[in-house]
């Protein structure tokens, strides 16, 4: 049978049985829409994890000195200038970004009452900052031990939005970056609870420099020499910044380490980020690094993988439920087709008498199932997308802020659209397969004579 003839015949038959078939395909619509909903939810949560909570870069590695307990026994060595040269010489390494921890103690003491009227006036202009928030700021009293490190400015230059991220002249505020993840937790919990303004890139240009006391500690007695007062200016938020501390330009950290901890501290690095030319090089470079006596910091990657695996498993569980719904719908489709087949027995006999082959009859039933699958699948897709949109709107309106709360909880991987339609088609085919075979096997002479 020609395809155009098949399409016309299918159209005629579907119109005739539209009520029965619409009822039978409800399950497909529900199953596919819930499948789309759960897959999109899983992908959305996964996106938050991989881009905000544990952002990963496929072609970067973090190298750390080998742990102390095994270091001497297995050839471990510190990351110094020679080690950086060795890293750069490894085939496949495109760039090396060293990181240096501050080798001395530092602290900060912030008192809201010390804010100048000009600074308060400036803060008032920030969109979203209310008078109550300013009052809360005036009440802030914070004393903090500061941990810090320095990074290669090339690694985070794009994150500096409120000033230049480079070693400043003596006496100028030190530009620092704060961890995006830390700020997200502050915004979602601390700021929310205390009525303080949320920290964002928009707020940073309005923030005055904050006091910083170098070579000083509130808790340790090991500080030697006099404390040195300084100021720091938060110039940006970065995922490369130290979690629970401040991150300054590498040369600033080197200068301060030299001043407060000696020359050796100015040439010893806590870690280095290595960029490889392509992810194909990751394996060989890792191997070479271990051979040189270094370890790789995989903790973030492992954490991201664990969380990702958990989300994938939960998503799979829900998707399985959706597929079970579609499977049950396939049984309903089969039942409906058997019923229609019973009603159309004589008609099938007639079609055979008029020249339909067994294959034509089978194709006719399967084509009807395909049309139902495509229609119900499309309806399920639209319904699922609509449910996502509605859920996003409701969650945005009624769910209180929390750390890493995304703008949208849903993401639609490209494969979801053809995938959902393919599922609908496959299950409708499965449902129609047996009735189609039965219809093709009908004896036309027997059906026409009512035997």
């Amino acid at each position, binding site marked *: *049978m020609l395809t155009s*003839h098949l399409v016309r015949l299918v159209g005629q038959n579907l119109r005739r049985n539209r009520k029965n078939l619409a009822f039978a395909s409800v399950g497909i619509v529900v199953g596919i829409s819930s499948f789309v909903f759960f897959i999109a939810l899983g992908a959305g949560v996964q996106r938050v994890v991989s881009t905000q909570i544990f952002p990963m870069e496929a072609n970067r590695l973090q190298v750390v000195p080998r742990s102390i307990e095994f270091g001497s026994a297995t050839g471990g060595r510190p990351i110094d200038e020679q080690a950086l040269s060795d890293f750069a010489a490894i085939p496949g390494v495109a760039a090396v970004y060293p990181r240096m921890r501050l080798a001395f103690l530092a602290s900060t003491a912030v008192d809201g009452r010390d804010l100048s009227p000009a600074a308060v006036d400036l803060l008032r202009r920030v969109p979203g900052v209310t008078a109550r928030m300013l009052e809360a700021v005036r009440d802030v009293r914070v004393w903090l031990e500061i941990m810090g490190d320095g990074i290669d400015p090339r690694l985070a230059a794009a994150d500096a939005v409120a000033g230049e991220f480079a070693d400043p002249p003596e006496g100028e505020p030190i530009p620092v970056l704060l961890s995006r993840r830390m700020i997200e937790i502050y915004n979602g919990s601390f700021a929310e609870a205390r009525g303080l303004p949320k920290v964002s890139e928009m707020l940073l240009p309005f923030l005055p420099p904050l006091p910083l006391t170098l070579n000083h500690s509130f808790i340790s007695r090991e500080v030697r020499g006099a404390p040195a007062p300084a100021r720091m200016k938060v110039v940006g938020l970065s995922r490369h910044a130290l979690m629970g501390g401040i991150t300054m330009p590498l040369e600033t950290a080197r200068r301060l380490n030299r001043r407060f901890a000696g020359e050796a501290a100015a040439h010893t690095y806590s870690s280095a980020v290595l960029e490889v030319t392509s992810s194909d090089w990751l394996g060989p470079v890792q191997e070479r690094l271990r051979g040189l006596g270094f370890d790789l910091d995989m903790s973030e990657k492992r954490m991201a993988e664990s969380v990702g695996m958990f989300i994938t498993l939960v998503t799979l569980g829900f998707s399985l439920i959706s597929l079970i719904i579609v499977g049950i719908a396939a049984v309903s489709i089969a039942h409906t087709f058997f019923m229609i087949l019973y009603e159309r027995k*004589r008609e099938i006999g*007639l079609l055979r008498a*008029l*020249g339909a082959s067994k294959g034509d009859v089978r194709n006719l039933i399967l084509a009807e199932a395909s049309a139902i699958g495509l229609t119900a699948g499309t309806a399920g897709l639209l319904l699922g997308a609509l449910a996502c949109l509605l859920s996003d709107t409701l969650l945005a309106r009624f769910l209180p802020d929390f750390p890493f709360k995304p703008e949208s909880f849903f993401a639609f991987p490209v494969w979801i659209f053809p995938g959902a339609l393919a599922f609908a088609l496959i299950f409708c085919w499965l449902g129609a397969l047996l009735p189609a075979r039965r219809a093709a096997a009908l004896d036309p*002479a027997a059906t026409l*004579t009512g035997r």
Partner: protein
Amino acid sequence: MIRLRNLSRVYGQGPSATAALRDICLEIPEGAFATVVGTSGSGKTTLLNILGGLDSGYLGEAQVAGRELRALTDRERSAYRNETVGFVFQHFALLEHLTALQNVALPAFFANAREPAPERRAAEVLARVGLGERLHSYPGQLSGGQKQRVAIARALYRRPRLILADEPTGNLDTATGAQIISLFEELNREDQITVVVVTHEDFLFKNVTCKVRLEDGRQVEGAPC
């Protein structure tokens, strides 16, 4: 046109086997008008189903238009039914959801080549059977005689060489039945179509060239023509 040699048809197996046809030998030439008569259960419809390629579970030989029907594949047999044979049934076998025009054009769906203007051809054959004014009527809107004319138009649609009619007047009153019979005779005379009619009432037919009588599956009249 039709050549049957020792044709038998048995339903079932073992002790419960029933012979519907036994050793039928028959020849019907091209352009003949044949009637198959017999009481109920004598094997008339079985014979028609075999001739129409609907039943290939027979023994012996059944050649139509030079082809042994049992030797054809399902696809070839379907093409044979579509191109060579036109069926007319006692109960008309029209699809209620289709118009007369759509019912008549139904065989076009199973043709191997695209009919250039299927609806024009359908209108043409409907006009040929005197229903040119009822193209868009549904079967429910037609009388019994008109329904049978639609069924005949459908049988004519693919320009068949053979029309097989199974008690085509069985559901019609005598006057209407006579009209249908004369339509068959006209088609046989003017278009040279071989017609085989299964009937109880062969006395109504005037131009029969070949008559076969069956009793309990045996041929009791109508030696090879």
